[in-house]
């Protein structure tokens, strides 16, 4: 989706200056401060650590040819979290607590003729 490019290419998220929390993906309202929250765009850190992971063997349409692939929930250096694929990493290093860094990858293409969606993935450092 073209409008998501800032998020997907550069991890652009939201910072609430009222409560100090970071959100990814972007939000229009801070769930804690609601309308009192002063929200600004914020680039997320490019490193973090794995909180949990799974290796996916049965994929949804569009990802069938990539199995098995790793998914993880990553906590970034600013405590914001995201769900991401983990690539270029041997199975024995993908584990809770592993340090990861941002990479730029192809996420999805619905057909050889269709547009390509690029975005964020992470790899174990």
């Amino acid at each position, binding site marked *: 989706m073209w409008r998501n490019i800032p998020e997907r290419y550069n991890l652009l998220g939201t910072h609430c200056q009222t409560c100090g929390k970071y959100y*990814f993906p972007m939000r229009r309202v801070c769930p804690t401060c609601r309308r009192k929250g002063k929200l600004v765009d914020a680039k997320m850190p490019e490193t973090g650590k794995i909180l949990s992971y799974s290796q996916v063997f049965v*994929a*949804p349409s569009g990802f069938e040819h990539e199995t098995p692939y790793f998914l993880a*929930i990553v906590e970034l250096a600013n405590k914001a*979290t995201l*769900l*991401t694929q983990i690539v270029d990493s041997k199975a024995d290093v993908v584990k809770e607590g592993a340090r990861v860094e941002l990479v730029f990858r192809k996420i999805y293409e619905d057909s050889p003729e269709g547009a390509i969606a690029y975005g964020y993935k992470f790899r174990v450092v």
Partner: protein
Amino acid sequence: MRKVSVIGVGQTTFGEHWSLSLRDLVTEAGIKAIENANVEGKDVQALFGGCMASGRFIGQEHIGALMADQMGMNPVPAYRTEAACASGGVALRLAYMAVAGGMYDVVAVGGMEKMTDVSTEDAAVALAGAGDQESELFNGATFPAIYALMARRHMHDFGTTEEQMALCAVKNHGHAVHNPYAQFRKAITVENVMDSGYIASPLKLLDCSPLTDGAAAMVLCASDKAKEYTDKPVEIAASAQASDTLALHERRSLTGLHATEVAAKDAYKQAKIAPKDIDLLECHDCFSIAQIMALEDLGFCKKGTGGKFVEEGNTDFGGVIPTNLSGGLKAVGHPVGASGVREAIDVVRQLRGDAPAPVQVKDAQIGLSHNVGGSGATVVVHAFKKGF
């Protein structure tokens, strides 16, 4: 607020219904419930139907009108609810609110899904719509994967094992052997689960509920009028619902559903009960880990001890809190929009004494149904009390 009772229940068998369409399924379940309630169709003043993804599964929306039309109920008002896998539970709650608030005396509520007309990959996409499309499905997260992320963290934090998770599936299959409506009436072993191959590690095929066609329905009535129709009304003692973030990664915890805790607390307060007062539980075991977390979040055991709690037999028939005596989502099958209603029906059957004899809890007075939408963004909890 008026008290509300369940006066009739009905369902189709759950399974792969190659020759039946969504309209066939919901009509069959609806008519069975109305007949079971001993009401006339003309007495039913409104219809509430839960359905998650008919648009993606069969290209059909406008399910409220479809129900009224196919069951010959026009022109009564008909509503479709959508809250992913909690669509049925939400339909039940809205129907309850409509009667409790005095708008109607008798309403029918249903849940339905026709899932087998699409490929497994397309079904995975449809189901993943229950999560956050932009941050989860976009990155290749299926629903098993989302729950796998919870399972892995649960294992990491509390030492829960794959065998303990497998036990949930084993026990549920053991119960379903007695359930004539269940998709899988076949006992399995822990070895079967462990050998069934990863779908999204650590979850294996037999940790996961299946793709299922089916519908379930019930008739609700203002309690003060229930005796006009049935000798065995079951009262809805509590109806609670809570919401949480759509995406798993934004939750306060990966090892439990906060919305379950909130809804349960509310339900216990409404019904003036505590977990120890509950005789049986139908919980939302879309994946084995979901059952372990539900037992914890509903307060039947301490956070982190769910695996051990199951292992010790506390959830067996005859245990501290017999859980999913129907077979649960795992073995009864999981037509996503139907499950919330089906869970409630199986609690009602137990309280009426209508459950299959080998798994009928003796003198059951209070039962709880627990229905989860997505990975916990919507949770509905209903408490039922024997009303006769």
